[in-house]
């Protein structure tokens, strides 16, 4: 999968993928993709208190913690491979899948209706918040240079409100609002990425 960036990790990527997907199936089956707030009666209800992706994040932290305790096995080397993962894998394998899927499943009719609002929010809006976040983090984190602070600002401007959009639709809120939020998240992935590349290049330039 990787491009052999780190020679020391032998590239057992599969072990983590298998364990992860197994957990993913369990979490997905039990709690679905959206949050259901309700009375907790059994284990499944505990799971459904948090969204599925959050359980994955928690699972990742738990797996990493176990990995600190038990070493010298297949899982350990696999986790090390993923820890040192080459960004090419993420960029060229996973990112296109995410972006294409979210663009493909969107409702094109209402998107066209709100193109102006979406581009305002995803263009100038993202630029503004990226600069704001950059300045904020530069002021608070002493080890950040300005460039790294703006890198953080740009990557933090990509919103992803899938759970909320589903909720808005279920609750019958004005359809335009849900579409604006969905369309904004789709386009600001792109604009945040453009800024990310600009700042990233400035950083890598010696």
């Amino acid at each position: 999968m990787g491009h052999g960036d780190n020679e020391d990790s032998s590239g057992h990527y599969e072990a983590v993928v298998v364990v992860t997907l197994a957990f993913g199936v369990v979490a997905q089956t039990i709690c679905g993709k959206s949050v259901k707030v309700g009375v907790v009666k059994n284990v499944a209800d505990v799971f459904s208190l948090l969204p599925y992706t959050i359980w994955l994040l928690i699972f990742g932290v738990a797996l990493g913690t176990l990995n600190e305790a038990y070493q010298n096995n297949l899982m350990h080397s696999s986790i090390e491979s993923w820890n040192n993962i080459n960004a090419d894998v993420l960029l060229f394998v996973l990112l296109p899948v995410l972006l294409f899927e979210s663009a493909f499943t969107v409702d094109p009719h209402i998107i066209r209706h709100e193109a102006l609002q979406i581009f305002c929010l995803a263009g100038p809006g993202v630029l503004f918040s990226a600069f704001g976040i950059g300045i904020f983090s530069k002021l608070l984190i002493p080890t950040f240079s300005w460039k790294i602070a703006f890198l953080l600002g740009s990557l933090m401007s990509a919103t992803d409100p899938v759970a909320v959009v589903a909720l808005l639709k279920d609750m019958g809120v004005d359809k335009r609002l849900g579409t604006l939020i969905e369309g904004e998240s789709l386009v600001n992935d792109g604009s945040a990425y453009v800024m990310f590349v600009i700042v990233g290049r400035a950083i890598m330039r010696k």
Partner: protein
Amino acid sequence: MSVLSICNSRRPFCFSVDFCCDAGQIFAWAARFAIGGPLLGISVGVIVVWMLDYFVKEDSEAQITLTVVAAFSCFLAAEGTDMEVSGVLAVVFFGLYLSEWAAYEEKIAFSLKTFWGEADFIADTIIFVVAGLIVSSVIWNGDIGGWDWAFLGMLYIFLHVIRFVAILILWPVLKSKRGYGKRWGKREMAVLTFSGLRGTVGLSLALIAQDMLRSRGQEDDEKNGGLIVFSMSGIVFLSLVLNGSLMNPLIQALGLDRESRAEEALFIHSATRVEALLQNYVDDLLKTDVFLEDAAFQSVWRYVPVFSSAQYWHRIESGKVHLGPFEIQDAVSPAAARRRQRTNNPEQEYCCPPAIQGTWNYYHRQFRQTPKSEGGALGFRRTQIVITSKNETHRTLEYQAIDLQRQLANVHEQLQGYHTKISHEENEDHEDINPSEEDLIQGRTRYIAAIRA
């Protein structure tokens, strides 16, 4: 990595173009990057749609493969060659173009959507777990101190502040009335501010940034990269948990899930229309039918769903549904109904089949009544319909009405079939003009059973 890194023979994708820090050049480059991407995506989309329409229309495997090849080659061409356009924008616009096509080819697009949904699931799962792994390694290696946790909390609050300010500045454009619907106000602004959740794309960019900083290897880079992944994961966690679960109460508190008075009037009006149509259908077509003349239409009307209090009252006042004494008691006082349900067996007391007693109990509760002193037929007064989750109600109305319409039409069709058959027999055999007694009885039982089912 490739897009960001300096040329390196070990890396398969890299740019030969030098990047310059002159502001004008950055702007020109950004413009080219941002405009070229959509252009590339749309042109790939045109080609793919053409191929989907003319070459692989019937073959879902080929269609899926075609979209996979196109999506990846779109991204690779944009990011991995000298084309210097944004691959992300290219893929997004390619997807949008294809979704336009998919809207007209619902059946064909189904397998595509299933496949891409699964691919998205796997990618999401991997990215979130890998982020969790990296966070845990960052935490256990001691790179994260108390100040970083405090920074995370402050950043979470600051993200909302900056999003609010951005929305406030852009508000004249955002609220502008284009197309349909009513004007937006403060409530919509609040929802918009609160919906800035962070997710997979931000997380994958953080992972890319971490790898980039690690490969640069300057002072503090390792720690900064770890901090970026840590804070991004933390923000994703906080925003998904807090914003995700507080959105529902927020919408309810703002009242955005409730009908406006106009919408409510419209809903009641359409429910009344449905009721009138059903009444015509039952009275004119079913009741006059020779096979159904002594069917239990009380029970038929019990099965027909009720959506508004107007409908509910019309059923009762016009005698389509006779409430039994215990039902009236339940309708007047829900507390009495609850008490009785605890102690007695309600099945004995309702004058409808057990299968729909619960439903009628629900109707009594839903279309709530006031006591006799305030007047009204049967001693209750009509009250406004209370719709809490309007989409659900609308959908139920739609589905149930369609379902009912279909069932009734089905029965009617069968009846028509019988009529034709009988008249056919009449034509064939002039001596036996009337159908036999047995035939009639058989037919009646059959259709009454069909209606009751």
